[in-house]
């Protein structure tokens, strides 16, 4: 918005969020004919499905007296009825029925936000709807591709979404936070590269000729039982604005060509993360771990999901503590070190998008439209 704010978000502790963007509002299975409430980017939403299965996201406040529509019920092929005075709105947010009168006030509408189901999630667009192009939904094809399988969960995280993005853009912390599962000293000893373009940032780290940590040793044994040797381990972290991070992770028997592209002697998974801000200090963190081997095994699906759930539980504790420390120390700044390059590029991209929306540096209390 103003020139002197340029560059501010790279060290801002609490980042504002772009609105001209797709955010995951829910898992596909959560959105049903029974309306539900969820707040994304400070917008309370009533989510439900039409009779023919299309997801709908309306503002969760009736036009009339602001009663939450999510407490109401679906009516007809795409309507929702306010639980208080019975006013009915359709999927476009237009009133189709009012009590005690023969006509309908043409001004009676509630905001209807573009909603699209893709990659097992329901995505919503809260900004200028004329810019909402479903082709810009982040690519998470591994979520529902026949050659991939897996499952995940949602974390309701008590922190600003940027702190989660920071966490995922630098996995050095695994050594310290996740020592019993995926952490190992080689994480902070190995080199990494960072690249970026207009909408994405990639951080690549290879750890060659190391012994796998417990989580990866188990996974490798699911395909190569009894292998006790060294491995080459990789983490290729790819961020897509504003909050999706897909991490290509895996291990392969050492010196079998994985760094050069031959992963046939290893196991590969993608940690699919997408984070939607709820408020400036809370977030919905949707994740899944998808793999491309032993697709037949529900046991492995459950084991991996629960394994990652345990790991992310450790992150959750740290992130909540970090947010509290930030709040308790408003006069202290963030400083950056070498490992923050990925997170810094993310902040730079978000800052450019916020600047474009005229929302850089402030958390504006604004209306429904841009």
């Amino acid at each position, binding site marked *: 918005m103003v020139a002197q704010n340029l560059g501010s978000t790279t060290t801002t502790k609490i980042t504002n969020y772009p609105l001209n963007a797709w955010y995951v509002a829910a898992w596909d299975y959560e959105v049903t004919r029974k309306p539900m409430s969820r707040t994304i980017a400070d917008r309370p939403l009533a989510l439900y499905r039409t009779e023919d299965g299309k997801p709908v996201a309306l*503002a969760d406040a009736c036009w009339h007296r602001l009663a939450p529509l999510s407490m109401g019920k679906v009516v007809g092929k795409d309507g929702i009825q306010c639980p208080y005075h019975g006013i009915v709105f359709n999927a476009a947010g237009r009133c189709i029925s009012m009590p005690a009168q*023969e*006509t309908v*006030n043409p*001004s009676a509408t509630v905001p209807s936000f573009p909603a699209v189901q893709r990659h097992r999630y329901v995505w919503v667009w809260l900004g200028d*709807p*004329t810019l909402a192009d479903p082709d810009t939904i982040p690519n998470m094809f591994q979520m529902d591709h026949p050659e991939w399988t897996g499952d995940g969960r949602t974390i309701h995280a008590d922190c600003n979404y940027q702190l989660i993005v920071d966490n995922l853009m630098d996995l050095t912390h695994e050594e310290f936070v996740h020592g019993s599962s995926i952490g190992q000293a080689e994480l902070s000893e190995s080199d990494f590269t960072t690249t970026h373009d207009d909408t994405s940032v990639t951080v690549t780290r290879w750890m060659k000729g190391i012994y796998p940590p417990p989580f990866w040793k188990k996974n490798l044994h699911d395909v190569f039982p009894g292998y006790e040797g060294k491995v080459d381990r990789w983490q290729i972290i790819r961020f897509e604005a504003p909050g999706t991070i897909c991490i290509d992770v895996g291990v392969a028997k050492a010196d079998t060509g994985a760094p050069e592209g031959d992963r046939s002697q290893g196991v590969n998974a993608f940690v699919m993360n997408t984070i939607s801000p709820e408020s400036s200090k809370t977030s919905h963190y949707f994740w899944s771990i998808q793999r491309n081997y032993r697709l037949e095994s529900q046991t492995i699906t459950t084991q991996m999901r629960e394994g990652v759930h345990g790991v992310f539980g450790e992150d959750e504790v740290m992130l909540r503590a970090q947010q509290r420390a930030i709040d308790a120390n408003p006069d202290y700044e963030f400083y950056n070190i070498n490992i923050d390059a990925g997170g810094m590029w993310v902040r730079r991209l978000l800052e450019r998008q916020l600047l474009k929306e005229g929302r850089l540096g402030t958390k504006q209390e604004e*209306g429904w439209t*841009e």
Partner: protein
Amino acid sequence: MAATNIEIWQQGEIIEISQAANDIKKIVIRQSNPAKADPGSHIDLMVNVDGEMVRRSYSVASQSEDLRDLTLGVFLVPNSRGGSIAVHELAVGDQLDITQPLQNFPLRVGAERYVLIAGGIGVTAIMAMAAVLKRIGANYTLMYAARSKEAMAFREELQAIHGDNLQIFLDEDKNFIQIPELIASLDDNTELYICGPIRLMDAVRRIWLESELENTNLRFETFGASGWYDPEEFIVRIPAKNVEVLVGKQHSMLEALEAAGVDMLSDCRKGECGLCEVRVLSLNGRVDHRDVFYSERQKEQNEKISCCVSRIVTSESGLAADASGPAVVEIVTT
């Protein structure tokens, strides 16, 4: 894009005035606190009519890229309530109180097909919608009707932007929108947005309601400014309160009753919400129902009136000359 109706007042400076057509001025206003005008939005402004500051609403036809400047098209209505005359007398450099853009006529993005109908000055409410539909590559037709070429504002500009998506209908060419055929050709994946004189809007609305199409896909905006008859002076009496008021051409019945000290309830003041309802005890004349709150059935009964917009006229023809004196209505207020 939903309704935004939180009024934020600001200063507007007239930076450009030009003749857009016969009796239509294009007026560009610079906002002191620029806000975005989504398609279908309007501003309210305060103008001086005979020494009294009155509030009027005008659609935002377009907005500059930096959001600062709003373009309005204002039609001079000699028989109106006086706002348009005052606006036509404004000059470059004049300052006036204006709201930031308000929205009661939002364009919904995502329909398969759109038909936009603009009648006369109603084009100002439709233009910005057409511009957005063009930009996002939507399937749309813009139908623009006016009396004559000379009465058609923004025609060249619209032709340049919309090309074959624009259809022009001129009364002088005896070329009219064939409403029944048009509506018969639509399905539930089409949204129709219309702004124009009440006769055009009413014709479209009647045929639409008779069709199988979904009511909510017909979108219209009315400021209640346009009626079936020219406005006349008329007398309103409230026997229970011993009140008699002469309603001038430039005022609504609601305004006149308020000015006379009657404690009136109202909200939208454009004939949509029904809160300013008065009940008719007796009527010497005819009601010019200008609201969209009552159904056709209720309007025919003439038992209730939305007094913020509806008026009384003397005769069937609406011509004051046909009558011996002003029309009179006796009412009960809430």
